[in-house]
Structures are given as C-alpha cells and as structure tokens.
C-alpha cells in the first residue's frame, strides 16, 4: 500500500550511495558485512527463490502447456494464448475488469481527494472523521461486508427503495446483469479512506505560505487548488493512482462473494481473477490459467510502465525533499 513514490525518489540516490560505498565492502570487513547481510537476508532469499522466482518460471512454463494436474504438462506452444483470444468468456472477463478499474479507481480517488480537501480545511474533529472514513478500508475486503453488500443491493432493500423513490426504478442490482458491476464499484469506492489518509498527509505538507502569497495575488480557491495544491500533492496522487489501479486489477473476493460464487449473472461480474480461478481450480486447466496469469502480469506491467512514463509530465518532486 505505501511505496511507489519513495521507490521513484529512492532508487537513484540509493544507487549512488551504493557506488560510493563499494570500496568499503572490500577486504575482510567487507566479507564479514557480506556474510552478515546474506545471513539476515536468508529468509527473504529463500522465500524469493521458493515462492516467487521459482513459481514465476514454472508459471511461464505452464502457460505454454496443456496441464490438468492429472497428466504431466504437455508443450502446446502458444495454443493457450490463441484459445484465450478466441474465448468469449475470457474477452468478457477482460471487459468486466477493465470497466471495473476504469470506473471504480477514478471515482474512488476523486472521492478520496474531495473528502481529504474538506477535512484539511479544519483541524476540529479532523482526527475523528479521518478515523471513521478510514474504517471501511479495513473491513471492505471481508466476506461479512460482501454479504452486507449483497443484501443492501437486493430487490426491495435500501438502495432499490431509494432509487425508486428518486424516480428511476431498477430493482435489485445484484441479479441485474446491467447493474451488478456497479454494486462492486460502489464497494470499492466505499473504501476510499485509505487513499484519503494519504492525500490528507500530503495536503498537510503543502507550505501555508504558498497559499497566503497566492491569496495576496488575488487567486480564487479554484485557481489556488489548480496551481498550488495539485502540483504539490502530485507525487501522492501518482502513488495513489498506481496502487489503486494495480489493486483493482486483482479484485477477487468481493466479486466472488457478492455474486454468490458464480461471478454472474450472465458473467457480469466475471472479473479476471474469478475466471482464472474457475479455469484453474474448477476446470483444472492449469496451463490456460497460468497463461491468463501472465497476461494479467503483462497488463499490470504495461499500466505501471505507462504511469511511470507519464509522471515526468505531471508529477512534481521537490528537489530538496529529503
């Protein structure tokens, strides 16, 4: 949850530091340091090899095989990938996930930023509101809340009644293929507290003097927001965008629970990981599932790369931040 900004800022200086540190690591002391370093790192190294690197290689291999757990993996070249593109359900899962990410993430971040701006205006009660708004982020992923959501969005429950009262009757969202995805979107937006807390912390770091100076120049609130607040919090914004996007790509539990395990109706909540789960653990098409996982990895990597590339254009880092 809390990383990428620092990653960007850190990676360069760390490398420089390391270069200057290089001579120190030579000689006996250096060898002792190396030994100590690797000993301390040994759990991580074991975990990395055993649980990350190894499985990644295996997963890549499986992606090119026909493997149902009963047979031994049989090399099929790119068959899984071509089958994927021919599979309407796979395409549907891509569509559902893309919709979920593209609608849910901006809404969530907008709300987070909006409420953060509101809270930042007053210190009175801020801590209380901050805590209360944050709470959903902790419980939102639980099965309990999945059930609650399913109930609230059913026929005749509060959402349906409110909507009918406002004059556009839809009925329950849960059983409606056109609406059920928005039920999941609402669930992710509901958890806006986590990015909000980060926005709030970012807003606190914007120097007051900047606003005072701008006010003297006669800048209105909108202008102040546009030319001071936004650039100043852009690293935090970047961080939130990156993390929330990557996170939404991987939604599983809430779709599974809210849709009563079927990820329907009419595959309307068939998010990517849900289909991956069905292919792998229900149909035992492990090769296909592995290929799907690699496509997900590629998509996430691509989005990350684009975001990192774009940050040069809109993210402002203070040079003397450290």
């Amino acid at each position, binding site marked *: 949850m809390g990383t990428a900004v620092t990653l960007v800022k850190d990676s360069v200086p760390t490398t420089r530091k390391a270069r200057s540190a290089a001579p120190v690591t030579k000689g006996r002391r250096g060898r002792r340091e190396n030994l100590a370093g690797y000993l301390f790192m040994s759990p991580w190294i074991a975990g990395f090899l055993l649980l990350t690197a190894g499985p990644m290689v295996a997963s890549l291999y499986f992606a090119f095989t026909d493997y*149902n*757990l*009963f047979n031994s993996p049989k090399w099929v070249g790119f068959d899984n990938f071509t089958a994927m593109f021919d599979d*309407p359900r796979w395409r549907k899962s891509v569509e559902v996930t893309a919709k979920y990410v593209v609608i849910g993430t901006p809404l969530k971040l907008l709300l987070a930023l909006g409420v953060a701006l509101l809270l930042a205006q007053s210190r009175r009660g801020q801590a209380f509101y901050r805590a209360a708004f944050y709470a959903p982020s902790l419980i939102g992923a639980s099965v309990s809340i999945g059930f609650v959501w399913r109930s609230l969005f*059913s*026929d005749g429950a509060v959402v349906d009644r409110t909507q009918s009262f406002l004059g556009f009757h839809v*009925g*329950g969202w*849960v*059983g*409606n*293929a056109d609406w059920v995805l928005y039920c999941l979107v609402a669930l992710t937006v509901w958890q806006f507290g986590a990015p909000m807390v980060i926005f709030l912390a970012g807003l606190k770091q914007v120097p007051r003097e900047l606003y005072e100076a701008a006010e003297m120049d006669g800048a209105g609130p909108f202008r102040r927001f546009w030319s001071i607040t936004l650039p100043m919090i852009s690293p935090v914004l970047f961080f939130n965008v990156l993390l929330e996007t990557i996170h939404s790509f991987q939604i599983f539990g809430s779709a599974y629970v809210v849709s*009563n*395990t*079927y990820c*329907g*109706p*009419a*595959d*309307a909540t068939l998010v990517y990981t849900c289909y991956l789960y069905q292919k792998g*653990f*229900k*149909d*035992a*098409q492990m090769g296909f599932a592995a290929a799907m996982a690699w496509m997900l990895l590629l998509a996430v990597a691509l989005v990350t790369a684009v975001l990192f590339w774009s940050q040069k254009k809109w993210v402002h880092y203070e040079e003397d931040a450290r």
Partner: protein
Amino acid sequence: MGTGTNVERRTVLKAAGVSAVTLGLAATACGGNGGTSADGTVTIRYSWWGAEERAKKINQSIALFEKKYPKIKVKTDFQTYQSFWEKFQTQAAGGNPPDVFQNAVGFLRKYDRRGILLDLNSQVKAGNLSLDHFRAGVTKVGEVDGKQLGVPVGSNTMALVIDKKVFERAGVDPATGWTWDDYFKALKTIHDKTKVPGDTGYFAIMYLYDLYLRQNGKAFFTKDGLGFDKSDLTEWWTDGYGRVKAGIVTDPKIVAQDQPKSSLSAGHGASEFTWDNFTVRYSAEGSSTYGLAPIPTMDGKHTGQYLASLMLSASAHTSHPKEAAQFIDFMVHDPAVGTIMGYDRGILASTEQYAAFKPTDTVSKEIAQYEDTTAKSGVLGTITPHPSGADTVEAAFLRIGGDLGQGKTKVTDAVKQFFTESQAAFQA
C-alpha cells in the same frame, strides 16, 4: 471437530510463538494422512457434499459404525456440491483422494478414466460388501463397463415441485400424463390469475431437458458426447426465453437475487423442476405448502424419467480397501443408519434401510409415494453413465441457459457457446 483436533491446535498455537520451523512441522502434523496406527486402528477419510443437516446425520451414523468396528476410525469432511468437486479434483490429481466419497452418475466415467475409482466387485467377492437387497435394480446406476464404481445410498428422480396454494388459487390441477402443452397453458393461467410466474426457469435445467429429449427418442448424453444437435437446443431455449419475456417464467434477475434460496420458496414462481428428494428444502425455506406433480409428456404417457442416485465410491489409491468397503457396506445396509439418514439423499436404496425408515412428515411420505407411483406406472427408463466432462457440461448448461434470460446474448450465440464449451469439456 472433536476434541482431538482442538488439542492439536492448541499445541500449534504455542508452537507459533517458538519458531517458524516448529510451526511448519506442527501444522503438517495437523494435516494427517489416513494410516494405520500402532494399535492396528485404521483411519479412513470420507468426504461428501451437502450441508448442515446432512453433516449431523452422517456424524451420528459414523458413531454407530465406529462402535461396531472399533478398529476403524472415520474422518470426515464436506463442502457444497460445487466446492466438493473442485477440491476432489485437485486432491485426486495429487494422488490423495479421500478413501470413501459421495459420488454421482455424472462423474463415474470422468474419474474412472483417470484411474481414481476402485472397482468394488473385488470387495464384493471378498465378502466385505454386499450388492444384494437393493430396490429395483438401482445398483445399475454405479456400473460402468462391467465395473462397480459406486454403490447407491438413495434413489431420486426428477419431479415438478409446485406451490399448492398458488396452483389452487389459479384452479390448475396437474394430472398424470399431462402434456407440455397442458403444462405451458397452466403456467399462463397461473400468471394471468395470480400474477405469479408459473415456473422458475425450466429451460436451464439439464436433467429436465434430458427427459424432454428422452420423450423424443434422444437423450442429453451419449457414451462420449451430446445426444442432440444445435437446432434442438435452439428451439428449446428460444421457447424458454420467449416465456420469460411473456412473464410466465420467472425473470432470471429475480432468480439470481433469490439465491441461495429458490425462487419457488421465495414466492417468485409457482413451480420448479428438481430432484424429488430436494422437496424438503422448499418447506424449510418458504411459507407456502409445496407438493409434487408429474412430469409433462409428449404422448400422454412417457415421462422419460429414471432413477438416479447418490452413491458411495472408494478410491483406487486407498491403502485400506477392505475397511473402505466395510464402511460403504455399513452405510448402505445398516437399518439404524437408514433411520438416521431418512430420505436426505433420496429414497433409501437398500431394502433393509427402506424398510427401517418410516417417514412421519408429510413431505417425505409424499416423496416416497411419488417414486412409488412413478415406478409402478412403468415409465422408468434406465440411466446411462455420463461421458467424461459431463459435470462441466451440466454447469455450462445451467449458466448459459440461465444467463440467456438476462437478454444479454442471442439464443444462437448461446447455443454456439454451449457446444464449444461442451466439446472442450469432453476432450479435457
């Protein structure tokens, strides 16, 4: 579940504080793999699907078994139908299937092909298991290519469950031998008079379509594929979707929301096709009175019905085939087990158990009577073991058929999709 596991877990909790290594080992010990302990006690693992009520009954039955065979311990675990087969598949693939497990006709060929199922004939010869005293040749259900891969615990057949109150209000009285035309007319009458859709979605139920096909001289499955073509299904689904649009079949949106409740018990439909032994669920879930009605026919006589069955099977990998067979034998023949289990898994299959259990509640009585009349009317055909992959096909039929009513796909596309997925399933 018992105190044993609790003690283990407490030990593990302590170990957690000590170190990662101890933790790993202790947790592994928890996993346990059925074996023979020092005093010659054999532990077998029995897995099944179902829910709370069945769990209680099975635990009671196992207690009886362990009393009679003090040297055999039975560990049990269960899931819902869907998760059961997911878990079973991965366990079987890992060479670690349960020693004894609940089974159904759609899975026999699939797991026989993969060498998972024990041919119980050897155990019958060895005298550990008896195939005598079964009702109406129901053991045939567990037979594939001369191998006895499962022993039935109870039999069931497709039925039409109706909301009696709604049917009465509409003045509809389903009679034996009624035709599909009669049936669809009835649905319309019900909807016109009571505003309740007549049925909850007949066209997505594979086993009902199977009956319809059988009435027309076909069947859903052949030995290795589908027994009908695209035009058959297009017709079936087009009609079904038309009836959703007309309002005489429940809107699938409502059906999706009512889950896990049935739309029949939720009052959103007046009838539902299902296995006769599932009838119990409706009275438990809903507030109306429910009853059984005959399956509609083409010719006023043949319903296409057959006796299906839940079975107990044993794993070909078990290290205790004898004990597994003794357990199956006890569970299917012991009269006391019959009284405990009742018709939970269908009408008791062995004559001993059938005689021992006298249903007292009206629902069970009605189920027994339904199967009895159906059997006596001589319409029962024989079931053939489904091809490998039938389970996936059934799920696809339910999903695609159910989704159809959402109006998101054209019928022709849905049919195409179903055939594509089926072909893949048969080959897998």
